[in-house]
């Protein structure tokens, strides 16, 4: 059944009738990134105002592939399980050349994780669930629909915004402005920031179709199917995904010179879909023609204006690195901004958001640009290499790995960045995101990600005693102590982290230090380093 777009109510904001006190945070854009940002901050006790020019969730399914790491972050934000319940879980991708399958990959071949490699869930559901969750914090999150920011001016220690509403304009002041206003970010445009990069000439058609039967043929299993040169769309590429509510996503590469207006008509699109699904009945739910770019801002933080998500970086969709990259931005920024606003850290901690996430987005751009290049050869020689790689891929494992239809989003590693304490060799190096594992504890079964995310947490695996340090939670795994202790179910946690080791997790679930026998001083030093106080002798 097609999604029912219920508009959210517009409420006249107080600023229309008098000056509002300066807000700590104003977020522009109530898409997945802006909403997640507001929830993250609210959970840390930081109030925000979220402004959106619209009053409905995403029109069209748009971002549909949500990666394991994103779901783990959503879990921390209190919406992971709802997304998982509704979403279509998948982990296998198959690549076809013509009619033949040449390679398949399993993105999560092991057990013992709360969340799967991926779920597919339409962006409108993701936004709906995030809005519902935001409404759990009526005193913290002030969600204002039909509030369009028309101007802003950055000052030394705040930002002044002009906002247009159905009742006229008003002004707002914020200590920090977070621009989550998407790829076309009006905030970025207004500031005249350079946003140029690689633009791909190829056009793609994306269409959502609703059908009872599965287009995945007899094997009615949700997977990611990608074709190079399929019989139903010769010489081009095609991608198929399943979404909830019997909706399927089809992505078709079009000619470079195709006319977008003509292509986006039922007359042109229906025969293309029939060529894929045959005579099975279907209904066209949504379609769009797009070109894509791989670009990022040079600097994500400009004074008191911070760019998060697509406003800071855009990628081609192959690899699901857009929305998933944006959620990792939120995860990285939330605890840092809260620490600064609560007076626990210097403003310089915000600059590490740029350092760490600029690195993450560069990685996403590299991977998505390479996938797009592979999919759309630019010269006869590129086409020749690809054709021969495909030919060899029928039975040469190395060539199968060369086929690149998108290297799917994996958690970004922050190894080597300033906030992490280098040193002790460990299975999970400082900088990497928590690797999940099932645990059993005083309150029953739980997961590692549920215990280590949200606040600085020191975790002892096996025979290692944890000192008490102010501002750091402690938990033990396979040990007895006077702090909460858990058993590593099926020993997964011990295998993944190693015995007799202590790991310090940042509030975003990234490891920032590892110890063999931590002392109070060790942990305090690692903690203050993670809060942006880098020891001088290491610089």
């Amino acid at each position, binding site marked *: 059944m097609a999604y029912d777009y219920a508009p959210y109510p517009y409420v006249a904001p107080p600023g229309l009738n008098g000056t509002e006190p300066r807000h700590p945070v104003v977020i522009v854009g109530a898409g997945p990134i802006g909403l997640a940002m507001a929830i993250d901050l609210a959970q840390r006790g930081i109030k925000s105002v979220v402004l959106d020019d619209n009053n409905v969730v995403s029109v069209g399914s748009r971002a549909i592939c949500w990666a394991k790491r994103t779901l783990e972050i959503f879990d921390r934000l209190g919406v992971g399980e709802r997304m998982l319940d509704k979403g279509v879980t998948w982990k296998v991708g198959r690549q076809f050349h013509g009619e033949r399958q040449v390679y398949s990959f399993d993105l999560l071949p092991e057990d013992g994780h709360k969340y799967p490699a991926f779920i597919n869930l339409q962006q409108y559901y993701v936004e709906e669930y995030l809005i519902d969750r935001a409404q759990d914090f009526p005193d913290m999150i002030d969600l204002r629909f039909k509030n369009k920011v028309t101007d802003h001016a950055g000052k030394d220690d705040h930002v002044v915004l002009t906002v247009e509403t159905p009742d006229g304009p008003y002004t707002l002041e914020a200590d920090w402005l977070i621009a989550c206003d998407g790829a076309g970010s009006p905030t970025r445009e207004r500031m005249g920031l350079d946003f140029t990069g690689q633009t791909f000439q190829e056009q793609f058609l994306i269409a959502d179709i609703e059908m009872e039967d599965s287009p995945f043929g007899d094997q009615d299993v949700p997977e990611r199917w990608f074709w190079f040169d399929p019989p139903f769309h010769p010489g081009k590429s095609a991608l198929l995904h399943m979404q909830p509510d019997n909706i399927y996503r089809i992505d078709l590469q079009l000619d470079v010179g195709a006319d977008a207006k003509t292509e986006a008509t039922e007359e042109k699109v229906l025969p293309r879909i029939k060529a894929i699904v045959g005579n099975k009945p279907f209904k066209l739910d949504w379609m769009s023609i797009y070109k894509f770019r791989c670009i990022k801002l040079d600097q994500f933080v400009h004074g008191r204006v911070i760019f998060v998500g697509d406003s800071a970086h855009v990628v081609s969709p192959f690899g699901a690195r857009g929305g998933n990259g944006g959620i990792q931005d939120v995860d990285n920024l939330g605890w840092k901004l809260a620490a600064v606003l609560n007076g626990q850290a210097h403003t310089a901690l915000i600059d590490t958001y740029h350092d760490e996430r600029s690195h993450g987005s560069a990685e996403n751009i590299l*991977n998505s640009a*390479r996938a797009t*290049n*592979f999919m759309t050869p630019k*010269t*006869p*020689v*590129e086409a020749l*290499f690809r054709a*021969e*790689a495909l*030919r*060899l891929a029928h039975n*040469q*494992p*190395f060539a*199968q*790995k*060369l086929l*690149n239809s998108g*290297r799917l989003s994996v958690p970004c590693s922050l190894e080597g960045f300033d906030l992490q304490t280098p040193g002790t060799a460990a299975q999970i190096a400082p900088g990497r995101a928590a690797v999940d594992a099932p645990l059993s504890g005083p309150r029953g079964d739980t997961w590692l990600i549920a215990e280590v995310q949200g606040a600085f947490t020191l975790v002892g695996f096996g025979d290692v005693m944890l000192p008490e340090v102010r501002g750091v939670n402690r938990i033990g795994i396979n040990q007895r102590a006077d702090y909460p202790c858990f058993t590593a179910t099926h020993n997964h946690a011990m295998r993944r982290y190693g015995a007799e080791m202590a790991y310090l997790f940042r509030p975003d679930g990234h490891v920032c230090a590892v110890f063999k026998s931590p002392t109070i001083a060790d942990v305090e030093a690692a903690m203050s380093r993670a809060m942006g106080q880098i020891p001088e002798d290491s610089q």
Partner: protein
Amino acid sequence: MTIYPDRLSPNQDDVYNALMAAHEGLSEDASHALNARLVLLMANQIGDPAILIELMQTAQSYADG
């Protein structure tokens, strides 16, 4: 069988990308010549005639018709 199943991963994308970059901006003739030089350099690097002949035969076996 002396041919390795896969010695490129996990760096396969770096290698493939470097190869494409090496060809960027070249005419077809120049690309052809670059490929020939590459094959000769790689042959020297591998060195073993038996392996090289097996590689040639394997490559030939995939040809059309």
